[in-house]
């Protein structure tokens, strides 16, 4: 599997570390029900069969966290953007 790193170009996935679902947002710790919100954030996943937004860290490359769009049924990757310029979570 090759990930199109916006900085390094296309690289084999073994250069990256994977962290999973990139659509989650860290909850506000001060909000009511924060514990429930953190539980959902840390443990619950949509885990879709199909389009998936996910975090990959280019550990052996530019050290960017990338938000990669990949299909979990085919492994086809349709794009990757850096977290820092990605703006709001999709």
């Amino acid at each position, binding site marked *: 599997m090759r990930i199109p790193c916006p900085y390094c*170009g296309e690289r084999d996935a073994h250069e990256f570390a994977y962290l999973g679902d990139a659509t989650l947002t860290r909850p506000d710790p001060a909000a009511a029900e924060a514990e429930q919100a953190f539980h959902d954030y840390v443990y619950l996943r949509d885990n879709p069969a199909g389009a998936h937004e996910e975090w990959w860290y280019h550990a052996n490359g*530019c*050290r960017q966290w990338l938000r990669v769009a990949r299909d979990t049924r085919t492994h086809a990757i349709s794009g990757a953007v850096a977290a820092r310029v990605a703006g709001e979570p999709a």
Partner: protein
Amino acid sequence: MADHSSHDPLAGIPFDRVPPSGAYGAGGAAGVTVATTDTPFIALVVARNGFAASVAGRLGRAFGVEVADQARAAIGAASTVVGTGPGRFLVLSKTEPDLAGTLRALLGVEAAITEQDDAYVTFDLAGDKVPDLIAKGALIDLDPRVFLPGHAATTVIAHIGVTLWRVHESGWRLLVARSLEASFTRFLVASGAEFGLRLENGTAGRG
């Protein structure tokens, strides 16, 4: 200098020592020569948020090279600026003893500077077979028609993190973490033996 002619070019060399200088593998003219040096002065420049372009511009002007915020090596007479990540530049200099200080003065609040003079061992590889040798460890396209002089990459070679760039037609420079020098040299020797490999370990400043 040892000449190794046995089948296993690493036979008898302890794994926790840098293989000694010498000729390894196939006889005849060496297909690859490897020279290790301690590049005297290296610093890492990390642009603070929003300053990447400005930092690139300042570095370029200061060292008289064209620096862009991308994976390229801008090679000047005395200095080279290598992009290793967005807003991240490794600056190598032959002449600036207090490179970090110079850079701090140059870049002020726009960047964080760290000394890295001792973090790396520099491998200078020369010869036509260099791309074939590196291709035995890396999964990037090093075809000389694609990876041109001035192109740079930070990647993995045989489980070892490396920043490399092509210096000129047949010269390649690789930076490897100092702690991994022995293992990386072993990889080069084992993989380069079929081409004939000449290893010259620099000693400058070591120890």
